[in-house]
């Protein structure tokens, strides 16, 4: 290549470069969320590399979470079914969205989703928080919002235009999901009485400690170990389901084969997954009733009674539930029972109450950012 050609090429390229930088949008430089911490006993977690946590993204997500414009008729926000004071549940057996019809499911608590099983919703329908965020917005019975309309609505608002520009660049469906998921990832609950006990800041009462031991133990009559068998599904520090693959889904004996719901089978298409539902976190469990995917149990006592005496046999019932018994079986009956005594049940319930995190439900960083007159759902 001769010298003049070389020089011409280089100049052209540099000119193009300068022009390119002029005509494309300026780079988005959100502030990485540096103050974000979590207890190490919660184990590994992963924030998707395409949606790193940023101050701007989280703040925007919080706004969207509480904004009723996310629903088709502007009456319902994410927070309608996820109230902070109830650890982001709604206190109803089955949630009700814009259609006024009862949904098939109980609204899930949104605590520590950063670690929780990597599949979201009761039947594992979403593979990420980002994916999950857009489903209720569009679901006709939940928020019934058309994404294009939502984007147009948000684009008409100068404030949102600025916030989106700072956090992600532009307003689109992906960035709406990114922001909501980012906000949800910051909902860390780790200051319950149990956490304070783990940090050595206090001691549990005798009853709570008894309950903690039972919670952690799979019963073994041979080794004279009594247990409530909770930890077999609710992994210990997070008290949610296990992370890997679909390990965090289980059939906990709610129904027998003839009325077993699809559950995880809806997603995996495998009949060995029929009746399996997501194992929810037990963090703040005293606040998140009614319980189970369909809210069939009102109280924690009913839940304990179910595990103790109410297990129904089905083909996919967890062998760990089938096998857990605190008494040697002297009859050949296949009645599954933990055989806990009343004191033991009360002790487990007392321990479950130590999982209530009052700083979580009062943390202003998670609360409704809109002026109070607009925040009727709070």
């Amino acid at each position, binding site marked *: 290549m001769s010298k003049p050609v070389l020089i011409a090429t280089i100049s052209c390229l540099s000119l193009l470069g300068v022009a390119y930088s002029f005509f494309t949008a300026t780079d988005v430089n959100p502030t990485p969320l540096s103050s974000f911490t979590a207890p*190490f006993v919660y184990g590994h977690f992963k924030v998707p590399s395409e949606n790193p946590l940023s101050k701007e993204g989280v703040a925007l997500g919080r706004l969207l979470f509480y904004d009723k414009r996310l629903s088709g008729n502007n009456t319902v926000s994410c927070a309608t079914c996820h109230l902070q004071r109830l650890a982001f549940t709604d206190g109803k057996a089955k949630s009700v969205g814009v259609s006024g019809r009862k949904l098939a499911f109980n609204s899930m608590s949104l605590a520590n989703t950063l670690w929780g099983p990597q599949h979201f919703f009761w039947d594992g329908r979403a593979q990420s928080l980002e994916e999950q965020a857009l489903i209720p917005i569009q679901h006709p019975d939940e928020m019934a919002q058309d994404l294009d309309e939502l984007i147009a609505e948000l684009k008409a608002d100068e404030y949102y235009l600025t916030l989106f520009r700072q956090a992600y660049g532009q307003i689109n469906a992906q960035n709406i999901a990114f922001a909501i998921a980012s906000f949800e990832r910051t909902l860390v609950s780790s200051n319950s009485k149990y956490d304070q006990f783990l940090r050595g800041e206090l001691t549990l009462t005798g009853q709570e400690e008894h309950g903690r031991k039972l919670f*952690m133990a*799979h019963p*073994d009559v*041979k*080794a004279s170990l009594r247990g409530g068998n909770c930890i077999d599904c609710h*992994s210990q520090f997070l008290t949610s389901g*296990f*992370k890997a693959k679909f390990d965090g889904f289980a059939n906990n004996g709610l129904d027998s084969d003839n009325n077993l719901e699809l559950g995880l089978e809806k997603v995996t298409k495998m009949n060995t997954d029929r009746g399996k539902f997501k194992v929810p976190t037990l963090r703040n469990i005293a606040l998140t009733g009614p319980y189970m995917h369909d809210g069939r149990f009102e109280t924690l006592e009913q839940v304990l009674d179910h595990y103790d005496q109410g297990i129904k046999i089905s083909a996919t019932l967890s062998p760990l539930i089938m*096998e857990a018994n605190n008494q040697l079986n002297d009859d050949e009956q296949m009645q599954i029972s933990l055989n806990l005594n009343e004191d033991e049940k009360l002790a487990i319930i007392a321990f479950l109450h130590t999982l209530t995190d009052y700083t979580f439900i009062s943390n202003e960083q998670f609360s409704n950012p809109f002026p109070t007159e607009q925040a009727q759902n709070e």
Partner: protein
Amino acid sequence: MNKIWITLLLICVVSVASWFYLVNQKQAGTVTLQFQARVGDKPLKFNQTIYPNPGGEGQFQIRNIQLYLSNIQLQGKTHRYQLTDSYHLARFDNASKSYLIEFHDVPYDQYSKVMISIGVDESANSSIMPRGDLDPNNRMAWSWEVGYKFILFEGTLAQAEKIQPLVYHVGFSENYKPLEFQLPKPITPEGARINFDVDILAMFNSSETINMVELPTVKFDRKDARLIAENYASMVTLSADSTGLSRPKKVDK
């Protein structure tokens, strides 16, 4: 003329030498360990009641099987290669029913021995610090006072119209089993793969034969746990094609 010939000759010598050097360059590379699960002489199939109870009546099915393989080391002529935090939770619920571990940047050497342990060594077993695949929130932690399950087997046994749950959760530091494998032919890194067989049936049928009807669960009873551990010590073996130098096949996750 001489000058040209000498130059050409030199060029030839140098290029042949550098070609030899590049080809035989003693470079660090990857070593892959593949663990192929089977149940006795049958392939592993989940959720199918097809395997006979080794010590008695009935047939069993497997719902879950996973185990810790840890502290894997490769013994070479000059190096002993060990990965830090080498705790690997092996599971086989993929299409090929196998588990792969890849070691990258393994220094060049002729490796003739592989050390693998089943279970978790005592210091890690009594700690709640997450490292490797150890995580106090995973399915293998009993409670942090007891440590980790080294092997988890869950399933059911069907016999005479009756379904019996099977739960074998075996841990305790005394059941940590270090194993040593002498390779028939030393391997060098770079695309080397060592194949192992993992015979799940060996848990119930090697040094002792277990009747699942009489022993359907093993958890905290130390004598029972030791019984299974003596058995699982022989569940990992070198495959016949243990030093296949073929490229490892990709296994779907």
